[in-house]
């Protein structure tokens, strides 16, 4: 095993071009576990912790450019207004020690269906900025996850940042685990309301081979909200609409039975989380709506 320590992003790209099997390591929360337990013996380990750029974020007009290695703890502390769903998701990650170290880049690189950030990114809308010596490109989050622990990266590419849409409405995130802290997701659900486009987006974790959106559920809810004039009148979403949305989210799942939970439970739990997060976000939207009305 060789340990490579590129001092700059350009150097990292060059190293990756020369050694496409090099395994990038930043927070180490996935890679080191695999090494400690003898599951993986990469030829090259490439340390990215010396590349300061990866630890920075910029808040733009419409998006936040989040460096791949910005730790979850920083997202929780500094980006809650812009990225509320991702901040909530970050808070569910493992333990304080892990949140101090791990970042979204690692989650995307590993592309485990259980990665905590994915449902929040899917719901908010995001693009993954990847780069190689051949050039830079942005992969829409919807096309990023290509299989179980597989993503759309080419062998010579590295994840530099993720561009996440700034919240234009309430976002929520829930995750089920069988312990009250420090759990890997049995399943997870992210929901974002986008009042500007009058749409909702969802994200589901650990309930299919990859993180997914519940598109049929989104389409149903978008139509129901539009038809009922809910975006304007700020009425309570009717229980039948919420239930139908929840059922469609559950139906979007394609889960397995494993040591962490049964497929049947996962489907059920996604439905419950969908209904609850819809209630929470919509109540929050209605609250804001009423405040706006009152002010006007």
């Amino acid at each position, binding site marked *: 095993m060789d340990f490579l320590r590129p001092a700059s992003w350009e150097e990292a790209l060059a190293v990756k071009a020369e050694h496409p099997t090099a395994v990038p390591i930043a927070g180490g929360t996935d890679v080191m576990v695999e090494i*400690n*337990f*003898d599951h993986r013996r990469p030829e090259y380990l490439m340390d990215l912790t010396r590349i300061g750029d990866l630890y920075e974020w910029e808040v733009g007009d419409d998006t936040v450019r989040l460096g791949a290695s910005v730790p979850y703890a920083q997202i929780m502390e500094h980006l809650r207004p812009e990225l509320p769903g991702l901040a*909530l998701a970050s*808070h*569910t990650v493992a333990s304080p020690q892990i949140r101090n170290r791990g970042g979204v880049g690692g989650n995307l690189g590993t592309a485990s269906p259980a990665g905590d950030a994915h449902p929040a990114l899917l719901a908010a809308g995001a693009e993954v900025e990847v780069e190689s010596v051949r050039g830079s490109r942005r992969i829409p989050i919807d096309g990023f996850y290509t299989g179980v622990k597989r993503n759309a990266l080419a062998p010579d590419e590295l994840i530099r940042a993720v561009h996440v849409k700034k919240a234009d409405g309430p976002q*929520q*995130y*829930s*995750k*089920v*685990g*069988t*312990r*009250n*802290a*420090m*759990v*890997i997701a*049995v399943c997870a659900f992210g929901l974002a309301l986008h009042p500007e486009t009058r749409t909702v987006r969802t994200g589901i974790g650990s309930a299919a081979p990859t993180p997914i959106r519940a598109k049929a559920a989104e389409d149903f809810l978008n139509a129901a909200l539009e038809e009922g004039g809910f975006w304007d009148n700020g009425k309570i979403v009717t229980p039948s609409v919420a239930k139908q949305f929840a059922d469609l989210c559950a139906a979007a799942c394609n889960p397995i039975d494993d*040591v*962490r*939970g*049964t497929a*049947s*439970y996962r*489907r*059920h*739990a996604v439905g*419950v*989380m969908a209904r*609850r997060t819809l*209630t*929470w976000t919509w109540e929050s939207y209605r609250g804001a709506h009423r405040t706006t009305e009152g002010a006007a």
Partner: protein
Amino acid sequence: MPTNGVPTKITQGSGTKGGIGESTLRPDGTLKVTGEFAYSSDMWHEDMLWGQILRSTVAHAEIVSIDTAEALATPGVYAVMTYDDLPAEVKHYGLEIRDTPVLAHGKVRHHGEPVAIVAADHPETARRAAAKIRVEYRELPVITDEASATAPDAVLVHEHRDDHHAGHVPHPNIVHRQPIVRGDVAAARGRADVIVEGEYTFGMQDQAFLGPESGLAVPEEDGGVHLYIATQWLHSDLRQIAPVLGLPEDKVRMTLAGVGGAFGGREDLSMQIHACLLALRTGKPVKIVYNRFESFFGHVHRHPAKLYYEHGATADGKLTHVKARIVLDGGAYASASPAVVGNASSLGVGPYAVDDVDIEAIALYTNNPPCGAMRGFGAVQACFAYEAQMDKLAARLGMDPVELRQRNAMEQGTLLPTGQPVDSPAPVAELLRRVKAMPMPPERQWESSEGADVRQLPGGLSNTTHGEGVVRGVGYAVGIKNVGFSEGFDDYSTARVRMEVVGGEPVATVHTAMAEVGQGGVTVHAQIARTELGVTQVTIHPADTRVGSAGSTSASRQTYVTGGAIKHACELVREKVLELGRRKLGSYHPAWAHAELLLEGGKVVTDGGEVLADLVDVLGDEAVEVEEEWRHRPTEPFDLRTGQGNGHVQYSFAAHRAVVEVDTELGLVKVIELACAQDVGKALNPLSVVGQIQGGTTQGLGVAVMEEILVDPTTAKVRNPSFTDYLIPTILDTPTIPVDVLELADDHAPYGLRGIGEAPTLSSTPAVLAAIRAATGLELNRTPVRPEHLTGTA
């Protein structure tokens, strides 16, 4: 802390600071908070090698061949050993039955069984070399439960049994069977107004001590070996290790290294023999440290169990009879299974008075992971089931569950189903009364001015509910655990106590082989010496095999038995010191001859308080030393057909009230409070007593809602050997645990004390289950409860 019991009369030492009854602080505390305390995994030696164990990847198979050539040729590798390299005639070990091969021979019987061992200069070299050992298996059908174990054509897990249980078991795949039959259940059933039946399942729990198995074996010039090891019982290890090394016991020296928790998981051997073998083979010190994955294969677990119960009662709530069948899965090797069977059967009705009882308990040999000792030891599984039955009975009778328990609670004098009278206080009804009387935690504690605090809700930080679906439930349970080794075992400990003047002060040194595993034995041992010898300076000598056996740090027995041995040795030292005083100074004061003399504050005083001499002057340059064995009252084996016999020496009782909040839609549980009342006889160190009760309670909580080793029923392979998937409670899963300590002296025990460590682990689990049942209305016949069971999605 309330101390409403009968006060214990102490004359000697009641005036000495730091004696028994005080919450003195741990003597190893400073080292433990500075990182200097040397645990077994911290041992280091110049030129030491690292040992690595190759384990079976299948559960049941014949070994066709093992090829070690490539591993041996790896640079940095010093030795590779298999069964064929074992040096002595004896190649097996075991706590009670010597059925466990040091390295697999001919076949493997469970997933993760040691097959070969490697020593190399770096752990990674050792791992790589182990991976190069080629083992060819021919797989055999797996025995995984009672049906497959006792089927007429079942493969025998052990083909040629000649152990002392082999003759009386109904099938060779049954390790041991113990019936307990008393009265006439058939007749009693006729008197019952209600009968409730239940079938219960207890999952496989892991001790999950935080310090993985580890140790360092150092070869010695005389051809022997010195092992620095984390264990629960040095002399039991020694008895099993020496014959396999082909060495006399005096050439195997053992010193207790720091122990990172035990809970029963270090009662059996793990890497002890392997490290010694490699050290003797290479002539170099060899260190072995399991990682967490290996630790799940490296020690026995709590027996999973199926329990079938029938309880009958009259309309006014008096138990008529209990019929039970308890099937414990012992896994591939016997370990402590026979004794676990003895506990599960003899304590199978719980702390209740019932005349007509028919219980059968068995332990199976299967190809599942071996199971043996864990805190609560057989009594835990039974308590889960009989307490569920008591709730079921109360519901059927329309009676308050606490009242039903109190109505049937045993008392001093009650006969156990074994016919043995309980000959010390048994405040079962009182403990229930106390735990019920504790104030209830406020409702909806999660509500705050800023909205719901998810940390106080089911699901915790995962943000699954802001109060939706959350229902509170309350449940009660009580249990009985035997203290000390039962069934006629010669249960003793040895203490060497020395008193001398060091630096102008009288100092007592206490030397025992007691394994301090975190429980605080070293703290109370020093307290006992202070009380008995009237000195403040007490040195606890490191535990090793240069002194006689202390017995195991298990069965809640060390404060009782090794504490008793120290007390006894101190009494003899005291007599010798006074004798010395009489000889040297007797002529100066008539009280030397006539008064009752005590040692207090470093002086010899009369019972009237008059100071006769300083210990410094009495002792001068002389040292007074005594080494003595001490035993608790003898016990008897249970009759193999009827289970009758005075098998136990002491009991420990605890009751719990659990308050839980369940997210009934998602099936997630938050335990809000887990209150405990326990009789401890006499709290030698109140702070440690409460710590033990809270720790034991939490392990019971773990197996109620999250902890289970999952074994694939088709392959018998372990599915979750990691802390990612074997979950133990975090600080956010653990509630406040108010503790009410009762001190009713057991006059047969030193200072009236009771062993305390295990009882709280018994009643915690059924109390939590009862609370979840109360919240959900579900029957819940297994533990741990998973979200699937609460949502109908299993």
